[in-house]
C-alpha cells in the first residue's frame, strides 16, 4: 500500500535571481523504523546547497542588477559582446537562435535596446540545477524557480524493486497554475513527469503580461492578446521561451508554437477566456 507508506517528501526554499526557488524531493518510503527520514533530509539539504551554487554562478555573471556582473558591463557598453566570456556568448547565441525560431516573438533585447538575457538565464539555471540533482543521484524531485517548474520522476516513488508493478503508473507531480485574475486561486492543474514516455513533459513555465509592462511587450507595441500563457514541454528552456514568445506574439505565435513544438499550452486571453491544447483538458468524467 504505497499510499500509506510514509514517503519521505521534503521541501526547501531559497532566494535566487530575485525570486523564490523551491526544491521538493521524494525519497522511497522508509522501511527501517529507526530511520525517521533523516537520511532523506540530509540528502535534500546537500542537494539544495549544490543547486543554490548553480543559481548563484549564473546570477553573478548575468544579473543586470549587479553592477559588477559581466552582463552589466555588456549592457553599459564597457565590454563588447565579442570580447565577453564564452558562456555569455553561448547564451547570447542561444537567445538569438530562439529569436529566429520564434520569428522575433522572443528576443533578448529590451525595447530600449539593452541586452537582457535574464529570461533565458533563469531557464538555464533551472536546467543546470536539474542536471546537478541527477548527478547527485536524486530521481524524484520538483524544482520551482519563480513559477517555472522542472520535475523528475514522481512525488510518490514506490518502495524500490520489491514494489508490485501492477500498481500502475507512478503518480505525476501535479502543478497548479495561478489564475491571473485572482492570484490566490488556481486556474488549472497540469501533471508533470510521472509515466516515462507517455506525454512525459517535465517542464512547465508561465509568463504573464499583467503588471510587468517591462517584462513582455507585444510585437508591434500593441496590447498583448494573452495576459498569461503556460507552456509544458520536455525541457524548461523551451517551455520558458515559448511562454514568453506567445504572450508577446499572440495567437499567431501560439499556432506556430503548437504546430512546431511538442508542447501543451494554456493561454488566458485578456477577456478571461481560455485557449488550451488537449493536455490541459480534464479527463472525461464517467
Amino acid at each position: 500500500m504505497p499510499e500509506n507508506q510514509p514517503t519521505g517528501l521534503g521541501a526547501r526554499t531559497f532566494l535566487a535571481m530575485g525570486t523564490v526557488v523551491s526544491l521538493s524531493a521524494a525519497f522511497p518510503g522508509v522501511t527501517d523504523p529507526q530511520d525517521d527520514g533523516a537520511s532523506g533530509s540530509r540528502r535534500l539539504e546537500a542537494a539544495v546547497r549544490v543547486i543554490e551554487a548553480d543559481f548563484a554562478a549564473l546570477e553573478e555573471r548575468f544579473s543586470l542588477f549587479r553592477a559588477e556582473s559581466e552582463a552589466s558591463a555588456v549592457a553599459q557598453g564597457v565590454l563588447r559582446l565579442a570580447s565577453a566570456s564564452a558562456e555569455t556568448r553561448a547564451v547570447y547565441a542561444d537567445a538569438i537562435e530562439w529569436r529566429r525560431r520564434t520569428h522575433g516573438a522572443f528576443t533578448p533585447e529590451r525595447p530600449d535596446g539593452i541586452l537582457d538575457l535574464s529570461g533565458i538565464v533563469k531557464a538555464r539555471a533551472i536546467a543546470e540545477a536539474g542536471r546537478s540533482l541527477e548527478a547527485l543521484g536524486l530521481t524524484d524531485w520538483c524544482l520551482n524557480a519563480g513559477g517555472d517548474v522542472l520535475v523528475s520522476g514522481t512525488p510518490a516513488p514506490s518502495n524500490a524493486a520489491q514494489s508490485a508493478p501492477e500498481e500502475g503508473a507512478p503518480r505525476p507531480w501535479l502543478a497548479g497554475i495561478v489564475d491571473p485574475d485572482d492570484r490566490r486561486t488556481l486556474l488549472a492543474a497540469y501533471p508533470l513527469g510521472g509515466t516515462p514516455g507517455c506525454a512525459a513533459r517535465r517542464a512547465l513555465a508561465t509568463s504573464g503580461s499583467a503588471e510587468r509592462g517591462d517584462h513582455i511587450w507585444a510585437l508591434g507595441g500593441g496590447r498583448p492578446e494573452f495576459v498569461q500563457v503556460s507552456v509544458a514541454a520536455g525541457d524548461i528552456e523551451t517551455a520558458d521561451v515559448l511562454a514568453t514568445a506567445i504572450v508577446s506574439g499572440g495567437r499567431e505565435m501560439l499556432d506556430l508554437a503548437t504546430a512546431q513544438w511538442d508542447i501543451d499550452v494554456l493561454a488566458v486571453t485578456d477577456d478571461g477566456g481560455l485557449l488550451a491544447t488537449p493536455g490541459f483538458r480534464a479527463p472525461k468524467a464517467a
Partner: protein
Amino acid sequence: MRARAAAAAALASFGILALGWQAGAQSIEASKVVGVTNSATGTAGSASSGSAGSPGSGSSASSGGTTAAGGTTGAGGTSTGSTGSTGSSTSGSGSTSSGSQSSASSGLKNGTFTGATEQTRYGLIQVQIVVSGGKITDVQTPQLTGDDMRSDMINSEAAPILRSEVLQAQSANVDTVSGATYTSEGYLASLQAALNSAHA
C-alpha cells in the same frame, strides 16, 4: 511545349492550393510551397509567353521567374492555355512529363496528368488533373498519406476551452505552483511555504 508548361503550371498551382488547404497559413510551410513553385517556374514562364501570341518562341522565357511570383505566373499560363485551345484527340495518362510530350495544338492535352509526389509536414501529397477539351475538368489528390500525422497536428492545436473543462486544481492537492514570474512572488512564496509545511 506549351501544353506541358500549362499542365505543369496547373499542377503547381493546384499543388499550392492543396498545400494551402492542407496546411492553412502556417508559415512553417512557406519553404515547402516555395519549393513546389520553383519546380514549375521555368515552364510556367514559357506558358505565359506563349499566350502572348508567339507559340514558337515561348521557350526562351525559361527560368526567369522568382519564387513567389511563380505561382501566379503558373495560374496565368493555365487559363491562357485552356481558353486558346481547340482540344486534341490524343488521350493519355501518367506523369506530367510523359503525358505532355509534344502537342502541336495550342492547348492542354487531353488526359489525366499526375504531378510529382511532394512531401509535406503532414504527409505525402500528389495532385492529379483531368484535361478534357483542352480544359481542366477535374482536380484530385489521389495520394494523401499521413492522416494520422495530420490529426496529431490538429490534436495539439490550442482551442477555446471552458474553465470548467480544464483539469481542476486547488492549492490543497497540487505539489507545486506555476505562475508568471515577478507578478506573484508573494503569493508563490506564501503558497510554497504552506506546501513545505504540509510536506514537512
